[in-house]
């Protein structure tokens, strides 16, 4: 699914990612844990193609294609989804209109016609119900005035709508209370189908107690310094990042 080889990335002339190697197979859930400033979010944004994140060397293959050579929108159309730590507000555009537009962008890339209004409403109702999202949220402007929980649920709704092959979750647990964390995690777990892969970036064990990873990697100073199974996350939670 995804293979990162010897990746070096700099942002504003400062090297953040140093010789990163990571391989994620179909259906696998990988978690990256690390302290503040270790470069975790830089991986997420580099994979999604954020401008100004300069890949100095190395390569990334996604579905056997050169990911780095593609524009950000092409990466999404190829099946990569980044759930933002801080979802962006888009005043003046209703959530329903936005969701329909992103869905149609993906349909267009598959050679399908734009979705019929009635069919879209049916899908939106069904998926919103699964996430306990009230329909009136979709008549509000995208993420504007949404609570932290609503924003994260809206990210999960987009994952569900776009049906990606690889989901990168950048500190999805930040800003969520216990109940919101639980319901968001349950929604994400419903998307685990044995084929779809996940890369979960987090500081804490608590998210990984709900979304159980197959592999855990500890990140420090731009590189993976240790890998293991879920027990590694528990050890980090007990001992902290300082003690290895």
């Amino acid at each position: 699914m995804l293979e990162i080889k010897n990746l070096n990335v700099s942002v504003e002339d400062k090297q953040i990612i140093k010789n990163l190697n990571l391989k994620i197979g179909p259906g696998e859930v990988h978690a990256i844990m690390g302290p503040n400033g270790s470069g975790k979010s830089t991986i997420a944004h580099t994979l999604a193609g954020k401008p100004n994140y300069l890949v100095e060397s190395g390569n990334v293959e996604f579905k056997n294609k050169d990911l780095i050579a593609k524009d950000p929108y092409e990466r999404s159309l190829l099946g990569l989804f980044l759930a933002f730590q801080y979802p962006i507000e888009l005043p003046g555009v209703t959530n329903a209109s936005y969701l329909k537009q992103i869905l149609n962008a993906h349909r267009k890339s598959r050679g399908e016609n734009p979705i019929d209004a009635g069919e879209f409403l049916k899908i939106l109702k069904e998926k919103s119900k699964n996430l306990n999202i009230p329909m009136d949220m979709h008549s509000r402007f995208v993420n504007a005035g949404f609570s932290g929980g609503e924003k994260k649920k809206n990210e999960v709704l987009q994952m569900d709508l776009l049906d990606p092959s690889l989901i990168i979750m950048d500190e999805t647990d930040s800003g969520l209370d216990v109940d919101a964390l639980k319901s968001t995690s349950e929604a994400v777990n419903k998307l685990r189908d044995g084929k779809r892969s996940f890369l979960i970036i987090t500081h804490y064990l608590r998210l990984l107690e709900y979304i159980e990873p197959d592999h855990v990697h500890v990140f420090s100073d731009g590189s993976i310094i240790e890998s293991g199974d879920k027990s590694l996350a528990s050890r980090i939670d007990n001992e902290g990042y300082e003690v290895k």
Partner: protein
Amino acid sequence: MNSASSLDCLIEISEKISIQNTSDTIKIDCSNDENNPIIDIEIEKSKINNRIYLVCNENHDIKATINIQIHDNATLVFVDETNYGRTTDITMNTAMRPNAEFELYRFNKFNVSTKNSFVHNCDLQSNCIFRDFNFSNGSKEMSNITKISLNEKNSKYIGSGVVIADSTNCKNQLDISHMSQSAISDCSFKTVSRGKSNVTFKGKVFVDNDCSDTVSSQISKGLVMSDESKINLTPILEINNDDVVCSHGAASGKPDDTVLFYLASRGIEKRDAEKLYMQGFLSEFLNKIENVQMQSKARDYINQNC
């Protein structure tokens, strides 16, 4: 094509002026003076809204003075959806008697190589409401001047202007004079400037010294979409009374790259992401248009021209 119904009054300006569907409550006189045609409109109270559509021949230069008098308790909805292909020079003078309501909607596209001017002077007496919405793309030399005088208490002006410029120029001036107590003005201006456009907005709010209990809000925002385009927003407040609530704000800048990246990360191409961004930016104040049909037209105008 305009969206007038068979019941609406039509004023057609071409080589000559012609009027269709006047009623007991809409009286129109016009002088077909070649050099300066004058249209005098009088509006009386009606059980249903009086509606007038202005239809101008896009293949002619248009010069006209439109004088509107809206009598006590009368209402008027005035709509202009013309795509102007030639030079225009239109002056509108409106006098609103007590309790009158006036809605003016202009959804216009101009030829980028023409010179166009619109001047509106509007006087409001007590308890009048004037809702003024203008959507334009500018032209080679476009001037849009509105002067509002809130002459008596409890008069209210709600105005919103949208300019979607694409290598055009557009000079906008809005003067609001609070000349009596307890009057309200609420105006917003938004523009997107593309190509080699130059858009200016000068919004002045004047509050006279005996105008206590005044409420005034003015906000202007611009989105610069190219390196060669310019936006200049100038709010001016002249307040001569302490018992007022007046606010103003002006901001312009380029699109937020973070937002464009967010949209790209959802599969939206750059061109479409910018379009969506502009549509959202310009639609922020559409809820000020209470008339559902006109709000829909405004949304369509923005979506079609971004």
